[in-house]
């Protein structure tokens, strides 16, 4: 882990890999990542012309070679700028990191992929490690560095932390010392803000969206989500914190799906606000809730967040302001 002085001497630059869900369905996440990283003194470069990562659950499942070559193209855009691609999405993280790992461990495959990339004038070297924004916060900057930026603390906020799958698994291709059953890094970041991360049953259960399940068989995905939401409600929390926009969508829009499909089992709707980690962290850093995408400035309908942030905004007023 880098020491504080090393970080300050190093002008930290990363390439922000947006993916699909963050920019096109949850732009408040993009807003909060950009603003929190800016406040932390880091430079995020745009990866111009980047595409879908491609999504591991669907496109990797359809055609592995397409998955490899399109991911290598995306990484090569960051390489050309001389930076690591970083992403706020567990799915994109899974793709970029697994492809990076695979190509760096298979010389022949890397050569074959470069033969294809050469046809569009691009080249993959593998010199820059793809990272998750949580990995940058926790491993590159560290809790001590983040603590310097905390201005306000929640006095009594109860949080259900949801990691999602691909940020920790497959663990042999992740930076968390093979910890995949009981990770704590996200809870530690959440608790910097004064919030309490509440234990709940089957905390590391998948949200159900991945693997192409949500896109083809939504009832099964919603059944996973129902189980998680029941456990979360039983633990008595104020909000859910995620570090993946697909999990975020699955908990947010998913609460509606679950209410439509399984009302007889859940008895009453959940209505638990789903908040992204940089939205929460940004509040503690003193950033304007407007800048973090927590305030609605439009009259659009059928749009994210599907579960209102209002109860959370009330808690912010009571505890932070």
């Amino acid at each position, binding site marked *: 882990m880098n020491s504080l002085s090393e970080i300050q001497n190093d002008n930290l630059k990363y390439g922000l890999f947006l993916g699909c869900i963050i920019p*096109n369905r949850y732009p408040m996440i993009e807003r909060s990542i950009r603003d929190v990283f800016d406040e932390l003194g880091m430079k995020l470069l745009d990866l111009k*012309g980047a595409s879908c990562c491609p999504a591991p659950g669907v496109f990797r499942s359809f055609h592995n070679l*397409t998955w490899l*070559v399109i991911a290598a193209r995306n990484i090569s855009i960051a390489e050309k700028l001389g930076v690591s691609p970083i992403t706020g999405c567990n799915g994109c993280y899974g793709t970029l990191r697994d492809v990076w790992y695979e190509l760096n461990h298979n010389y022949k495959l890397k050569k074959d992929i470069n033969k294809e990339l050469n046809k569009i004038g691009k080249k993959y070297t593998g010199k820059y490690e793809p990272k998750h924004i949580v990995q940058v916060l926790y491993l590159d900057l560290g809790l001590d560095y983040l603590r310097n930026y905390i201005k306000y603390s929640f006095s009594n906020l109860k949080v259900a932390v949801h990691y999602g799958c691909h940020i920790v698994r497959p663990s042999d291709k992740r930076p968390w010392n093979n910890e995949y059953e009981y990770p704590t890094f996200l809870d530690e970041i959440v608790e910097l803000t004064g919030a309490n991360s509440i234990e709940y049953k089957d905390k590391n259960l998948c949200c159900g969206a991945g*693997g192409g*399940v949500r896109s083809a*068989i939504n009832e099964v995905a919603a059944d996973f989500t129902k189980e998680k939401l029941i456990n979360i409600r039983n633990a008595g929390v104020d909000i859910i914190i995620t570090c993946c926009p697909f999990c975020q969508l699955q908990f947010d829009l998913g609460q509606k799906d679950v209410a439509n499909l399984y009302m007889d089992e859940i008895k009453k709707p959940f209505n638990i606000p789903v908040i992204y980690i940089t939205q929460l962290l940004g509040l503690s850093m003193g950033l304007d809730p407007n800048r973090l995408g927590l305030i609605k400035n439009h009259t659009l309908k059928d749009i994210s967040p599907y579960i209102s942030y209002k109860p959370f905004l009330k808690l912010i007023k009571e505890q932070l302001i």
Partner: protein
Amino acid sequence: MNEKIQEIIKRDICESYNSNILRKFIDTGLEEIRACINCGTCTGSCPSGRRTALRTRSVIKKALDGDDSVLKDIDIWLCSTCYYCYERCPRNILVTDMVIKLRNIAVEKGYILEKHFNLAYNVFFKTCHAISAKGENNKKWRELRESYKLPSLPPTVHSYPEAVKECQTLMKEVKFKKLLDQIKKKIKK
């Protein structure tokens, strides 16, 4: 043991299974599947199997036995790729990667769910995003971006038409487009 002998021995054992699927696994370096002792840790760890008919152990067993029905069943598409089976396998088999490889073989043979095909054919190939913010239908999403003071379209393929061309060229070169077109023809029939 020198490499040559090692190869012969591996192939010998493989022949006894007489499985085309197994052959494909071995050709892509997933030969560890032969180490499966059918212990069921994968099935026991599977959150999808708690609520669906997916039994990971059966899927792997069918693949080993060369039972083609594993490619046609919906079971392999019920996996949410949470990677618990991969992590917990006592024989270090990359179970989740096997399931994904089985899906690849299934799609190659034209077995793909309709919604998945539409996503690949009508969204991914055309826009190079899995979820698009372009077109009249998606106006509200562009306006939502603007409400957070972001440009109406992100600086991705959405803002660079030449980047879409690049991705499409790659998808044609690796024959993904050809595969999709073949499936499209099959569906029409």
